[in-house]
Structures are given as C-alpha cells and as structure tokens.
C-alpha cells in the first residue's frame, strides 16, 4: 500500500460516496459519534447521538466496474441504546453511542459491542435467507389450521427468501460504571474486553454480564485531590496481558495484567517532558489526550492531543518518536477556542493497514494524513462541493498569517462548527470513512 498523497507513485484520494442528509439543519440525534470498520473491512458501522447504529456492507466487486472497489450500502440499522434517567442519582443518561468495536468473525453471524455512557451491549447481526415452508398445522401466513382439516402430512422444507438482516442484543453489560464510559476494547484473546470511564477500567468476559473485574482505579480517596481523569484505553493487538490508558494530563500508562490483579501501578509511563518556558493556562488542557491507538503490528502507539498527533515506541517512555502538527495555527486562537469550548473537542486518530500513514480530523471539515517515513502530510476536505463520483480530492492549505495565496484559506475563515472528530481506515485497502457532523464520507484511492 502506498502513502498518503502527492508524487507519482502515491495515492490519489477520490470521492466515493456520501451518506446522510444534505440540509444544514442538523437534528441532534443525527450527529455521528463513532465510525468503525470490522476486521475484514467488509462492514462499516456508525453510531449516532440518537443511540442508533447503522451498518454498511461493501458490495462484491463486479466485473463491470474494474475502476473502483465495491460501494458501501446499508446492511442493517437498529436502535442500540435508549435515553434513561437514573432516579436514584438524579442522573440523565444519554443514548449517544460513544464507541463501537467489532468482534472478530467466528461464524456466519457478526458481533459488535456498542456503548453509551453507562451500558455496553453485545449485538449479533445475522442473515436469514431461507425460511421453512409447508407446515402441517399452520397456513403460509401464520394462521393456525384446524387439525381436523388435515388429511395428509408433509415434511416442511427450507425455501430461499429475500435476504433479511437481523440485529439482536445478546448481552447487556450494565451497572459497572459510576462515571462516563469513554472506551471499550476487545482483547486479543477474543474472550474478554475492557471498558473505561473517567476514573476506572473494568475487565469483562464476553459471556458473563453479572460481574466484571476492576483493573484500574484512579479515584482519589478525597475527590478534592482529583487532578486527572482517564480519557481513553485500549488492549494491545496481540499481547493479551497488555493495555494502555491515556489521561487528561497528557500521560499514557501501560499496564501488564500479569503483574497484579489491580493495575494501579503502571508498568510503563509515557510522558514527554514539558518545556517550562512554554507553560501557560492552556498547557494542560491542550495536552489532554483524546485518543490512543496501537499500531497494527503492536510496536507503536499513537496519541492525539488538541494540536498534534504523536507516535510512541513502546520501548521508549521519555518522548515520542514522531510528532505531527495537526493545526499549529490554532495556537494563536486558543483564547476564543477556550471561550467557545472547542478546545475541549475530542479528536480521534487512526492508522492505515500497514502502519505507514496516520490520519486525524480537524476543523472546517478538513482532515489530515501524515505519511511516516516520508515525512509528508496532506490536508483534504470532506465537502459536498468535491463530491462528484471518482473526483480526485484537491489538497487544502491553511494560511496562518501574512499573505494568503490563491487557494489557501485563512485561519479566521475556518468554520469551527464543522469538525471531523471520527475517521476510520479500512484494515487492508486505501478506503477511508470520514464523519462530518451528520454525514459519512467514503473516499478511495484512484484505481487506474
């Protein structure tokens, strides 16, 4: 797989599809809150603020269209979570889907975990393309026959029917989190998974819903002493004993579950020392890590803070091996970004299939790709204007100050309401899913 963009051998990103309403009046329920490809890339799931999950399936490539990979069409949609009110604590529980994580496929059915602030659910998505016909005691429409009218017996047979995709909740993992769940992560043992809230991380068995083990607890005895919260957590892709969690203070802790039952003491602490001359009111806020993702090969992890993406070598704790500036020009806007709360936006990040490129979102519906190795970066835009089929996306550039060149956009013209927080990269191919506020864009590399 080639790199992010630019150059003759490199990827040229083209518009493929866009899902969602065109109108600007966005209902809150339609705000996309998570996007995730499954392990094969054939399925793409989205969750929204209204608690709904929509799953798209990639069409099989047909001989008639050698120039593009299959399109993603709706496969299944269901209401995963409902709004709740905890009367005991007088707490309103949003139905917004915070994260979706797919389980690796074990049989014909697909399984995914979806979570809101308090409850995780395991959903089974299965296909039905046959139905039994020829019952003795029932009519075809389901009405029961009078047994006395039955004169001959026949054996019911399965006949093909139009494909029906059914989603059913198989497990509900509830009541284990006092605070708001920000992450779920399936272990490489395919038997357990973790769920993390602001102060605690719990370990679950996929089959057992009535208990979970607390493995990390950073709640101080006196809440007045609270200085940091857990912002994201993930299991290592192939070491089932290893997990990492990031904090609001910009640190990442790696824990080994073999060391102790309660992993409050970290095995490794990843933190980049701060230059004291750069300390400001905003320092801690912009250092808060909003996402942490292991590379597919398990050797690196990536973190996203407000202004940058950092790649860490798991063997080196004192500083990241690579740092990429996502939108450095925002440094001179921090005051207004604090006032309009944008400084608290939680951007996610993702790796491509072979860990050579990383991607993250920004404002004005821009998203950024960083090509490791070649140290090249690319800014693209998800917009209706560049949505002609197979149209190649034009690279964008933000002008930080001084003279603005012809196609550049100035920092003051950026629309901070158009944020791309969620992006996903197909596990093998150069297909990416980019979520704007209420639309899902799918881009592919140009195939010749």
């Amino acid at each position, binding site marked *: 797989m080639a790199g992010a963009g630019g150059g003759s051998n490199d990827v040229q990103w083209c518009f493929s599809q866009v899902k969602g309403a065109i109108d600007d009046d966005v209902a809150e329920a339609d705000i996309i809150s998570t996007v995730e490809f499954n392990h094969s890339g054939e399925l793409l799931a989205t969750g929204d603020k209204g608690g709904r999950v929509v799953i798209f399936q990639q069409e099989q490539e047909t001989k008639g269209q050698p120039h593009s990979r299959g399109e993603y069409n709706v496969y299944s949609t269901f209401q995963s979570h409902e709004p709740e009110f905890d009367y005991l*604590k007088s707490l309103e529980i949003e139905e917004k889907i915070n994260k979706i994580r797919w389980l690796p496929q074990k049989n014909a059915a697909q399984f995914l975990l979806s979570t809101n602030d308090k409850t995780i659910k395991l959903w089974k998505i299965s296909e039905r393309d046959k139905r039994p016909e020829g019952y003795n005691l029932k009519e075809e429409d389901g009405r029961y026959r009078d047994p006395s009218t039955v004169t001959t017996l026949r054996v019911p047979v399965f006949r093909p029917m139009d494909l029906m995709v059914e989603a059913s909740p198989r497990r509900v993992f509830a009541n284990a989190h006092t605070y708001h769940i920000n992450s779920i992560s399936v272990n490489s043992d395919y038997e357990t998974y973790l769920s993390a809230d602001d102060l605690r991380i719990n370990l679950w068995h996929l089959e057992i819903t009535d208990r979970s083990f607390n493995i990390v607890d950073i709640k101080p005895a006196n809440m007045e002493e609270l200085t940091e919260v857990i912002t994201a957590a993930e299991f290592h892709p192939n070491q089932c004993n290893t997990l990492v969690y990031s904090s609001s203070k910009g640190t990442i802790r790696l824990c080994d579950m073999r060391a102790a039952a309660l992993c409050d003491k970290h095995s490794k602490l990843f933190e980049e020392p701060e230059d004291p001359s750069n300390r400001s009111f905003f320092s801690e806020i912009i250092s808060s890590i909003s996402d942490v993702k292991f590379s597919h090969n398990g050797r690196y992890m990536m973190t996203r803070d407000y202004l940058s993406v950092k790649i860490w070598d798991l063997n080196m704790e004192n500083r990241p091996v690579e740092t990429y500036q996502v939108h450095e020009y925002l440094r001179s806007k921090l005051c207004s970004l604090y006032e309009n709360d944008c400084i608290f936006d939680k951007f996610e990040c993702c790796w491509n299939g072979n860990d050579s490129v990383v991607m993250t979102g920004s404002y004005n519906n821009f998203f950024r790709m960083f090509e490791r190795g070649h140290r090249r970066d690319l800014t693209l835009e998800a917009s209706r204007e560049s949505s002609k089929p197979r149209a190649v996306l034009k690279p964008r550039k933000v002008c930080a100050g001084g003279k603005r060149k012809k196609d550049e956009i100035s920092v003051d013209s950026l629309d901070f309401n158009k944020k791309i927080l969620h992006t996903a990269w197909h596990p093998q191919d150069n297909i990416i899913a980019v979520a704007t506020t209420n639309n899902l864009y799918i881009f592919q590399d140009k195939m010749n």
Partner: protein
Amino acid sequence: MSTENQETEAQFESEEEKQDSQEKNSNPVKAEEAKLKAKYPNLGQKPGGSDFLMKRLQKGQKYFDSGDYNMAKAKMKNKQLPAAGPDKNLVTGDHIPTPQDLPQRKSSLVTSKLVG
C-alpha cells in the same frame, strides 16, 4: 550630525518593534493567555484542576427537589412558577426545576438519515 542621530534613533525604534513582534510570534500562546486573563480576571489559577474535572464528572446531573417544588407551588397559589429561561439547563435565581423543564426524553423512533 543631527541627521546621524535621527537615523540611529529610527533604527533603534524599529529594532524594539521587531523584538516586540518577535516575542508575540514566538509565543502566541502567552498572548492568548493574556487575552483570556484580561477578559476573565477571576479565572482560577488551576485550569486543569478540580473544578473543570468535577464538572466533567457531573455531566448529566439533574436537580429536582419535590419539597421545594411543592412549597413554591403552595406559595405562588394561582400564579405561575418562574419558568426556566431559554437555556433549561441553567438554574438561576428563583427558578426551581420543574417536571416541565426536563427535556423530553423521547427515544429516536425515526430511522437514521444515513440510511436514506
């Protein structure tokens, strides 16, 4: 001689200006911090500390006291209770959260627009 002095003075001034703008450029964050402190002089010294985190942990907390509500209703008799302002989440002054103020918790029975 006076012309020479004038020239040096002018040079000196422009160097000062250059230094000022360099400082601003080299630390735009400090300039932003100064702007914020000027707007909100009482802003806490510990921005990432307890207050901000506690607010994050208390997300979703709603307040309703049936005692207050019934007392207020009794006092007001025929009059209306002070209703919530446009921002129903903000409880200020005499306003007492009432059942009417709680946002309607209807689940989305409508299909997602991504399916259209």
